[in-house]
């Protein structure tokens, strides 16, 4: 006799069956979106179908909030989730947590394959990374001429470092024509010799960003003579361009910021700093000169001839005094000598003999002294000198 189940019990058994199957608890399902419904609760309900089957799906509010894709009926998508039972309706369904456009899974596989290959070649090695100049004069940009990414980057550069010259090498950034155009853009920018090349694109799906995973583009970035900054997609997007670039920026705007590490404000501060140093150094120099002047003045005063003149004057006085005293001494000596001579002269004075009664007789004619008889002749006129005068006489007889 077969056992009779209640509906609940049977449903529970089916649920257990489904939930114990690991493959059904972590599954990707591809199909076309239909019966899309987003009630106020925030949960998303839809049906995935293909030509012969349909699958009810629900995505809870928390997962729905993380959706980057905007869902439309008719869209081919891949949905990830687990299979479960909605017991009140007796219905199995997919509890979805991720939805991506069809093809992304295959793209992801290709991404991983290329990444591994290029990594093995050493294209992503940290020692290949070149430093990005801090103060570029010329920045090359590879992006779409019409995208918001270009506008964002130009605005950022304009705000941060308007001294810079930008050279754009415009290129489509998605579609099959994008990779060869991007390669050509990188190569022609290299011939313009900018200091930095930014390769950038705004956000999009993995498929949209796919050109930046193209092997040709990755190799062109690796071959660039000029350091490359990549700014592709959003913070969470990683492309092979990001791995091969010398510097990875999360967004185009961030790439423009990383390309201008020194900004207008820094330059203005630098000029101001030079100006301050200029003023300080000239003031120091003037102060130094003043000091030097005052010490020279002191030295000059010390070396002034005034002191020498005084000492010379003193020496002169000294000499004058010595001259005077030696002269005086000499005069005294001379006058003593004169006195002595006078005494001796006095002693020899014949007049002194006369006073004792002697007389001096001279010839009247020639004044010669007659000291012997033979000198006298009769009748001769003579002069006789005595102590108080003289008188004439005549020789009478011999």
């Amino acid at each position: 006799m077969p056992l009779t189940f209640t509906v609940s019990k049977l449903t529970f058994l089916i649920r257990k069956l489904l939930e114990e199957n690991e493959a059904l608890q972590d599954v990707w399902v591809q199909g076309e979106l239909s019966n899309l419904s987003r009630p106020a609760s925030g949960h998303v309900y839809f049906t995935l179908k293909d030509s012969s089957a349909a699958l009810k799906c629900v995505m809870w509010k928390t997962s729905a909030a993380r959706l980057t894709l905007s869902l439309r009926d008719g869209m081919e998508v891949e949905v990830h989730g687990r299979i479960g039972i909605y017991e009140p309706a007796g219905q199995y369904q997919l509890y979805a947590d991720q939805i991506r456009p069809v093809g992304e899974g295959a793209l992801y596989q290709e991404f991983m394959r290329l990444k591994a290959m290029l990594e093995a070649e050493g294209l992503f090695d940290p020692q290949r990374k070149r430093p990005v100049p801090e103060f570029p004069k010329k920045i090359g940009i590879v992006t779409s001429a019409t995208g918001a990414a270009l506008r964002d980057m130009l605005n950022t550069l304009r705000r941060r470092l308007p001294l810079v010259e930008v050279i754009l090498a415009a290129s489509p950034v998605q579609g099959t024509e994008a990779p060869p155009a991007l390669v050509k853009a990188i190569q022609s920018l290299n011939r313009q010799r900018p200091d930095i090349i930014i390769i950038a694109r705004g956000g999009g799906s993995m498929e949209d960003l796919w050109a930046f995973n193209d092997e040709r583009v990755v190799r062109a970035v690796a071959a660039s003579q000029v350091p490359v900054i990549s700014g592709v997609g959003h913070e969470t997007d990683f492309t092979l361009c990001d791995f091969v670039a010398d510097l990875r920026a999360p967004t185009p705007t961030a790439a423009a910021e990383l390309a201008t590490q020194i900004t207008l404000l820094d330059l203005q501060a630098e000029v101001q700093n030079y100006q301050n140093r200029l003023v300080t150094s000239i003031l120091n120099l003037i102060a130094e000169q003043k000091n030097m002047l005052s010490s020279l003045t002191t030295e000059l005063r010390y070396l002034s001839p005034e002191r020498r003149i005084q000492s010379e004057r003193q020496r002169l006085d000294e000499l004058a005094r010595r001259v005077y005293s030696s002269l005086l001494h000499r005069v005294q000596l001379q006058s003593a000598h004169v006195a002595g001579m006078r005494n001796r002269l006095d002693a020899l004075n014949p007049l002194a003999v006369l006073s004792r009664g002697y007389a001096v007789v001279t010839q009247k004619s020639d004044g010669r002294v007659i000291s012997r008889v033979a000198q006298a002749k009769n009748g001769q006129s003579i002069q006789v000198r005595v102590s108080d005068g003289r008188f004439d006489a005549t020789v009478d007889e011999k």
Partner: protein
Amino acid sequence: MPKSTAKKTEKPVEELSYEEALAELENIVSVLEGEQGQLEEAIKLFERGQALAARCGVLLEAAELKVKQVAGDTAVPFEEESE
């Protein structure tokens, strides 16, 4: 001694690019900071330096982003889309 500056100062300040003006300013500052004596020469350098700093300031103030576009092996002005 500042022989080289003395030679370079011949070019009028108004004709210098930002880089030239800044490089000369930098040189003058280091000369003045190392200088002993020569007040008259130093004051000339100082005045030149002031003019260079002013030139740099004006150039920074007036700087406008130049955007060109690659065209073959040359670059031509690029017209940005206005919003």
